[in-house]
């Protein structure tokens, strides 16, 4: 009864949030567009529904893993931040009931989101060639994935008080489960003796690939394949075992989250061990005088930027990125056999660096809005322009050493490549434009959005994907195909224009104090 009451409360609260509405619109739009895109290269002939269904199955499988941490990772951490958890625990409510109600509300949200895929599913059904077993298999797989992702996200949310940290932990756990779940399924099937192409693969990787192919991309004629490959009783038994494991993971996660909440709801101070670890790991040891001098100089020149850099996490970003870039390229360059992978590594590094930049930028003004310091800054003699520029310089500065190192390495590689031009070299111009505009976009959304997640998604979507999408749409109406360089230039122009518009809006909103306040008065 308590769970039901809480669930109702949660659903009502969800319904009132603008984020819920926009998330549904976004998911429905993405699934519909994804479905159309998947169907685009298939000939719509009778009996071809199976191939399309396979693709939609894969899309929904990945969406179920991806959407849950994005939507639900802040469910318990937010209650802790806002102090409402304490009030709930002053009632005779069991912690597990609260955890269950919280995740129950997100289960309903996920179900609604996945239902948005039903109209797309109708296309292959109408085309024909789908056995009812394929549809049942999809439903069973999605239920299993939901158990894993909802459970692990709930556990991650119960551990952390900070939204971004809960999200990072949830993504980490989901990543592990994304590998573990197909591997367990493959191992349960135990079909390595049925095929011969696994020569050269370890048993574990073979189990993973077998499980993944059946869970995420089952063959179009899935029913016939299953009947051919496995005895029906074995498949049923494996699926039942898998479902029991998934439900157990969910139940254990709810119990774990309940235990965590029971321990943490009183907001006890940091334990002595944690304090010692923080002191040992996060305090500067070397070059303390230099660091103090450097930070003082930064404070004199740029107080808003200093706020971005004063914490150990800010310094950690600088040094981690330097270490990552240095070690990855050092390893690659020292091993000539890996030179062929340079182009791939370039892309991954650029992508990760930009995502990291967006992550920092999307949360930039958040803390000041929560603490009320933004109001204090706005009544200080600092101009709005100085606050924005200071903050931008602070964010750029965090990633500047890694970016500089990356550019240096690329320049070295370009000059060191003796046999013609370097194959698949990085698009330096596009990277630099994205590096320049993402903090502007992120800063705008960090001021404008109540939810960090929304700010992060909009920063990445607005700064990187939207210009690409617009350029792609433009190409549809262009009479002739654009050269890649012209296309890149068009994307860059769109990015710069968007950043310009958002900069102006950011300035105006700060001038007119038109931003949602997050703080609670005292």
């Amino acid at each position: 009864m308590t769970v039901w009451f809480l669930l109702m409360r949660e659903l009502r609260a969800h319904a009132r949030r603008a984020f819920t509405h926009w998330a549904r619109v976004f998911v429905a739009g993405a699934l519909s567009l994804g479905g159309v895109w998947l169907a685009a290269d298939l000939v719509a002939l009778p009996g071809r529904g199976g191939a399309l269904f396979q693709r939609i199955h894969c899309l929904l499988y990945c969406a179920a893993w991806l959407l849950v941490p994005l939507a639900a990772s802040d469910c318990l951490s937010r209650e802790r931040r806002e102090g409402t958890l304490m009030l709930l625990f002053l009632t005779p409510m069991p912690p597990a009931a609260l955890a269950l109600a919280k995740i129950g509300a997100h289960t309903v949200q996920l179900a609604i989101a996945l239902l948005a895929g039903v109209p797309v599913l109708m296309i292959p059904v109408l085309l024909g060639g789908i056995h009812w077993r394929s549809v049942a298999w999809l439903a069973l797989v999605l239920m299993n994935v939901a158990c894993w992702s909802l459970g692990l996200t709930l556990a991650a949310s119960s551990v952390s008080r900070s939204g971004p940290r809960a999200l990072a932990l949830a993504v980490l756990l989901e990543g592990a489960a994304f590998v573990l779940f197909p591997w367990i399924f493959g191992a349960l099937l135990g079909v390595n003796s049925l095929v011969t192409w696994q020569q050269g693969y370890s048993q574990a990787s073979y189990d993973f690939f077998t499980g993944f192919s059946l869970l995420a991309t089952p063959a179009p004629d899935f029913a016939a394949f299953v009947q051919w490959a496995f005895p029906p009783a074995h498949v049923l038994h494996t699926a039942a075992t898998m479902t029991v494991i998934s439900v157990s993971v969910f139940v254990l996660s709810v119990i774990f989250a309940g235990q965590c909440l029971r321990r943490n709801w009183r907001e006890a101070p940091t334990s002595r061990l944690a304090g010692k670890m923080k002191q040992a790991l996060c305090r500067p040891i070397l070059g303390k005088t230099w660091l103090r001098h450097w930070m003082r100089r930064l404070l004199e020149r740029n107080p808003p930027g200093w706020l971005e850099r004063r914490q150990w996490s800010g310094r950690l970003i600088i040094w981690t990125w330097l270490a990552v870039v240095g070690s990855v390229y050092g390893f690659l360059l020292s091993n000539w056999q890996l030179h062929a992978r340079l182009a791939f590594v370039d892309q991954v590094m650029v992508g990760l660096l930009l995502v990291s930049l967006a992550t920092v930028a999307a949360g930039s003004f958040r803390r000041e809005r929560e603490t009320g310091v933004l109001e204090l800054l706005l009544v200080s003699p600092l101009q709005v322009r100085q606050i924005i520029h200071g903050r931008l310089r602070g964010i750029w500065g965090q990633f500047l050493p890694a970016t500089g190192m990356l550019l240096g390495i690329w320049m070295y590689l370009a000059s060191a490549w003796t046999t013609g031009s370097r194959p698949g070299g990085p698009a330096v111009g596009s990277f630099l434009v994205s590096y320049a505009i993402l903090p502007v976009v992120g800063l705008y959304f960090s001021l404008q959005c109540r939810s960090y997640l929304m700010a992060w998604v909009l920063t990445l979507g607005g700064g990187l994907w939207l210009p690409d999408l617009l350029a792609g749409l433009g190409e549809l109406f262009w009479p002739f195909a654009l050269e890649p360089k012209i296309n890149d230039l068009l994307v860059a122009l769109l990015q710069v224009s968007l950043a310009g518009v958002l900069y102006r809006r950011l300035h105006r909103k700060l001038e007119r104090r038109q931003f949602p306040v997050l703080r609670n008065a005292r």
Partner: protein
Amino acid sequence: MTTLAAAPVAIQTRDLTRRYGATLALDRLNLTVNRGDLFGFIGSNGAGKTTTLRILSTFLTPSSGTAEVLGHDIVQGADAVRRVIGYMPDFFGVYKDMEVEEYLDFFGACYRIPAAQRAKVIDDVLELVGLTEKKGALIGALSRGMQQRLGLARVLVHDPQLLLLDEPASGLDPRARIEVMEILRELRRLGKTIIISSHILSELETICNRVCIIEKGRLIYTGPVQGVRAQMSPGAVFWVRVGSGLAEAVKLLQACPEVAEVTPVEQQLKVTLAGASGDPSLIAETLVRGGAKLLELREDEMTLEEVFLRVTRGETQ
């Protein structure tokens, strides 16, 4: 625009109005605060106090009307206003993982105080608010009262001439409140003009020389604390204690045409004279002539809280 030194008036507002959509938060507020005043800003929740202080601090702009702070227009000369005011909002505005000195150092840098001077300034303000020994402490480890005092220290870092303090004593225990009020008195002695909004009217009554009462965005009263009592009082009210024969004393007073009302309260009589400036000797004369034994006659002074209650109940015009 008048120069700073020549301006005898610290704050002057003319028809200051602020709307939030359809809600009228401030309705043509005309207010004058003199230099050196410790000015109490009284009003119920949602009356418009915080909006007024936010406008005066340049955080918000008025929908219409004008305001001058120490001779500078709050819209045209917002930058100049920000340099001469210290605004303490109704929340702490602190980073809990910062040290006290670091926090003040940051705001000192925001106010462009040269680095060489900042250390001394920080020491001075911490001494003034009594936080010297907490200089290296984490803000999150400070008590509520200490965080409040830190907020005051932040306001004082750039030595502003005018302080705008929004509920600086709310949520504090009696000792911390008394300490904050003492600091405010000290600041007034140092020549600062202070505007303070508070719900704790008994304290405002003791420290403020002038007050204003605001209700639903409109100014009800502005002037000295004594003046508000006189203005809000329905007539002259006195308390009378007689030795014996309380009923006879009531009859004697009721027979007097200048007496509007006589109410026995326990062993005393509450006597209201007809005119606002009634003469208390009339009561004494009536009782003595009638043979009653007069033990005590004192004026009934309305407290600021009573005045405020009357105002917010709509008992006054």
